[in-house]
């Protein structure tokens, strides 16, 4: 092993020893860092989950145009062509009377009364056009088109616009944006507190070891030989905090999934969230480690820069 490697190894060992020796100080710094990293992680997962939920509901939004029984095939084709000309229309599906009945029976297979009621009469369900849109917020042009008198004549029932679903989407979108903002604020606040605490931890460690550091300087230890162990110490705080925060999140999802047996918690789809966590596990671990190390080493770098001014002569 050459001298540089030996020195690097000694710096690493010394930092590790300090980390263990200053266990209580390290624990305080780690506690705040764990909170910060856990907030970061939960914000990311909650954000992804809410986005997914909103998308799921948006995808389900459709417009059902119920047709009178006497609408002919050419009339239906004209209506379909007319709707397709509207930019926001994504697809149009046709559900015949028979299919509607089949769907109805399928959906109500557990309700014998409803099944009996429908079998006693001739098929009362109308055929319909199932219109899917790109953007549920912009269905006005479709509405205007469907309310034209000649088009209205073809329709048997009031068109369904899934209005209640739209309200739900707005609510979720608001909640998502609030949680996203709260997450960002939380991350900034706790990251700042983490930086301050690690900064103070290192500052106290420097103060506790000031005699040793001055001896090291007088014996000709280089700047990085003195500074290195402090950086290693805070690097370890970052790494340990990242590991603990990932383990914590893992435990929370395991408990939520198995013990509570819940699939959703309020608006949060836990199944999706834990799948997201499992699917992105290594990316999450790496980014948590990255954030932990940047906060740890960054604040320690500034602290050592500030408090380890090596007296090289005036």
């Amino acid at each position: 092993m050459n001298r540089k490697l030996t020195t690097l190894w000694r710096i690493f060992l010394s930092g590790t020893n300090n980390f263990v020796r200053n266990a209580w100080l390290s624990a305080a710094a780690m506690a705040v860092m764990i909170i910060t990293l856990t907030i970061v992680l939960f914000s990311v997962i909650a954000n992804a989950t809410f986005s997914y939920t909103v998308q799921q509901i948006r995808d389900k939004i459709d417009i059902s145009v119920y047709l009178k029984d006497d609408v002919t095939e050419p009339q239906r084709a004209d209506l379909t062509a007319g709707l397709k000309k509207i930019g926001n229309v994504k697809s149009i599906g046709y559900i015949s009377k028979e299919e509607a009945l089949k769907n109805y029976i399928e959906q109500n297979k557990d309700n014998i009364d409803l099944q009996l009621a429908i079998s006693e009469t001739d098929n009362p369900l109308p055929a319909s056009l199932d219109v899917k849109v790109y953007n549920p917020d912009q269905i006005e042009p479709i509405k205007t088109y469907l309310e034209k008198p000649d088009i209205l004549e073809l329709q048997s029932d009031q068109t369904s616009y899934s209005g209640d679903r739209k309200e739900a989407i707005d609510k979720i979108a608001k909640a998502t944006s609030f949680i996203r903002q709260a997450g960002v604020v939380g991350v900034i606040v706790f990251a700042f507190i983490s930086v301050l605490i690690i900064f103070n931890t290192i500052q106290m460690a420097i103060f506790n070891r000031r005699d040793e550091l001055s001896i090291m300087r007088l014996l000709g230890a280089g700047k990085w030989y003195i500074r290195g162990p402090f950086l290693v110490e805070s690097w370890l705080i970052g790494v340990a905090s990242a590991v603990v925060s990932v383990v914590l999140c893992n435990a929370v999802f395991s408990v939520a999934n198995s013990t509570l047996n819940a699939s959703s918690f309020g608006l949060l789809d836990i199944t999706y969230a834990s799948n997201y966590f499992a699917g992105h596990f290594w990316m999450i671990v790496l980014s948590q480690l990255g954030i932990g190390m940047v906060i740890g080493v960054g604040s320690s770098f500034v602290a050592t820069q500030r408090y380890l001014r090596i007296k090289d002569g005036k």
Partner: protein
Amino acid sequence: MILLDRVTKSYSKKSDSAALDRISLHIEPKEFVIIVGPSGAGKSTLLKLLTREEKPTSGKIIVGGIDYEQLKDKDIPRLRRRIGVVFQDFKLLPNKTVFENVAFALEIIGISTKEIRHTVPRVLDIVGLKGKEKNMPLELSGGERQRVAIARAIVRQPKILIADEPTGNLDPKHAWDVIRVLEKINRYGTTVLLTTHNQDIVNKLKRRVITFENGKIAGDHSGGSYKV
């Protein structure tokens, strides 16, 4: 080995309060030089200038061919590795054993563990501390602690050893133990610069004595003596 040319060091802007006032001095390799003088005469300032803990206000300092004017901050650790320093208050690391304290000086310059295990016992033997490797500094007498500090200072085989009142905290017997070790190191070829208040030591050693008074050299005599 050591050359000072009209070196002045002032801590304040008033010119009459210079800690060192236009000092010129030349010390040959392998010399044993004793620097004496009352407190505040400028002895410690001189040593701090040599270890580059302080910069001179004016004048030229050249040690072992290194011109301090040309020295960059990043080169200072390397300079300090070439000069062994022994302090009056020992400056040992209390939580390390005797062996570890000496080894520490080698560790910071990246010497391998194998070499350290080989070198440290030899140096401890030179200073008469064989068998004390595992002791903590607080378990040793003042004289023994100072010898650990000397071992640490010479373990890197410096060409110059600066001993700043190494006997100041010791009783006469232990003080002489330390001086004998310094003489031994000098015989091996190291230039020794010793500051002391101890009249008995100065007079018995009969080495070159440089006397400082009020920041100036008041006397420089081979085989000199000192009266308080």
